[in-house]
């Protein structure tokens, strides 16, 4: 499916399937009658719906910045995660992330900016109104989801630290706390913790770049990168670093975690691109989750994950096969 110009993305929120219906998927699939009943439910908080953990957030829906594709159910988006700080199995993050303490949470801001320092998370979020953006999330492993994120545009968040003209890149770091993150305790991990990621400044300032603090209307579950994570929807999922504790503005390009481990497999840019194969996975297609066993939910992968209109100009003149 091709995402067209802004207005075409728009969709009144009432058309998005209410959370309760997704949460009740199992149940409503058990019978046609139940399905009809579930679909008829009038929205949030409907009878029989499971509460979504976390605190309710106040936010504005941004239909112009949201896809109208069907959402990946809350249960799937929060139980099938790659977050190696908690283990390499997709179920590990949900299983073990409760050990993570997300309050109080301090974010260190440093480098080429005039307002660096150590900030309490609330303080850097306070000046901003939350938005909801429904983005596609494409993993390098050839599966994808559609997630309603709550957060603030990354540009707004970063601008408050007043980056200087020398800031050409922004670097992010995940918490390093082996006591809380059991994956960091593994003696056989090849990751040099903490997890590191980075963006070019113009990528970070792009309107699509988003700093999420919630999903499905509530605060981010730990396994999804609580309390604060990046969301850059035109890049493979591993760029969207989770549980961020450090932001640094730099003049030189930072080395990122996966690039350090396997530079031939994972590049700095990691833009979604069906024309550039990964040595492990073909990137031409993706399985949109949830997928069936006997009817795999195949979709053709789109260049820049379908966000070319917003981001293609960032890479004009670059050979994307070389800068993958």
């Amino acid at each position: 499916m091709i995402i067209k110009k802004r207005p075409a993305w728009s969709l009144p929120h009432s058309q998005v399937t209410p959370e309760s219906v997704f949460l009740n998927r199992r149940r409503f699939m058990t019978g046609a009658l139940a399905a009809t009943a579930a679909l008829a439910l009038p929205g949030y908080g409907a009878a029989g719906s499971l509460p979504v953990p976390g605190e309710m957030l106040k936010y504005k829906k941004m239909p112009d910045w949201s896809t109208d594709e069907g959402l990946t159910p809350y249960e799937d988006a929060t139980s099938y995660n790659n977050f190696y700080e908690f283990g390499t199995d997709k179920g590990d993050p949900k299983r073990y992330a409760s050990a993570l303490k997300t309050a109080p949470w301090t974010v260190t801001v440093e480098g080429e900016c005039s307002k660096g320092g150590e900030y309490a998370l609330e303080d850097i979020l306070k000046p901003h109104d939350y938005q909801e953006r429904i983005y596609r999330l494409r993993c390098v492993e050839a599966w994808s989801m559609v997630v309603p994120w709550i957060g603030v545009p990354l540009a707004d968040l970063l601008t408050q630290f007043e980056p200087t003209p020398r800031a050409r890149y922004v670097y992010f770091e995940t918490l390093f706390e082996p006591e809380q993150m059991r994956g960091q305790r593994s003696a056989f991990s090849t990751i040099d913790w903490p997890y590191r990621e980075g963006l070019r400044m113009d990528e970070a300032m792009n309107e699509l770049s988003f700093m999420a603090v919630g999903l499905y209307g509530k605060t981010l579950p730990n396994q999804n990168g609580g309390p604060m994570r990046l969301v850059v929807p035109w890049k493979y999922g591993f760029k969207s670093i989770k549980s961020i504790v450090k932001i640094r503005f730099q003049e030189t390009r930072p080395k990122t975690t996966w690039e350090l481990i396997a530079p031939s497999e994972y590049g700095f840019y990691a833009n979604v691109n069906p024309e550039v194969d990964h040595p492990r996975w073909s990137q031409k297609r993706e399985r949109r989750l949830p997928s069936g066993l006997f009817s795999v939910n195949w979709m053709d992968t789109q260049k820049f994950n379908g966000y070319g209109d917003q981001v293609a100009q960032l890479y004009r003149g670059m050979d994307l096969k070389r800068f993958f």
Partner: protein
Amino acid sequence: MASSESRALGFHLSIAVLACVPGLILVSDMLYSRLGPDPGEVVTKSLGMAAFQLLLATLCLTPLRKLTGWPGWLRVRRMLGLFSFCYAALHVLAFFQFIIGWQDLWSSFTRRPYIIFGLIAFVIMVPLAATSSKAMMRRLGKRWKVLHRGVYIVAVSAWVHFLWQARSDVGEMLAYGFLLLFLLVARVIWSSAFKRRFVSGVQ
């Protein structure tokens, strides 16, 4: 009083039931929709894991027999090997169906090193499974033994196939690697050629 015949049969059956367990778990997870949002991947991985574990179990039988002196272990060797082959065949089928959807076959098998090792393992398993019957054993005579030493290549290739998939944590792969290494080294040490050369004076 159970005769030794019926005891052997009981042993055979219990091993068969155990070898079915990974498949039964998958079927029940399927029926109860416990495979998660990407069931194809889970099924592919579980089948690969079952094939590999049963292959290692098969390789444990000769050392077990040496250590315990009980010949019964060897009576389940063919069956376990065939179970491993069945899981491997289903694993490969699952790969085609769920992971690549029958597309990009050529590039999958030429450009992805970990797949190439899986393929090597599987391709060698085929003639081993095909010649596993008693009749084939008789027909091939001495050559049967030589042919079936191919199982060591299968095991090592399958392990490399597994290791190469590690993205960041190789702990599990190393654990299996040590078991495999132990099983291979034990065979070298127990081989008559090794004994003749290094321990002839003792024994």
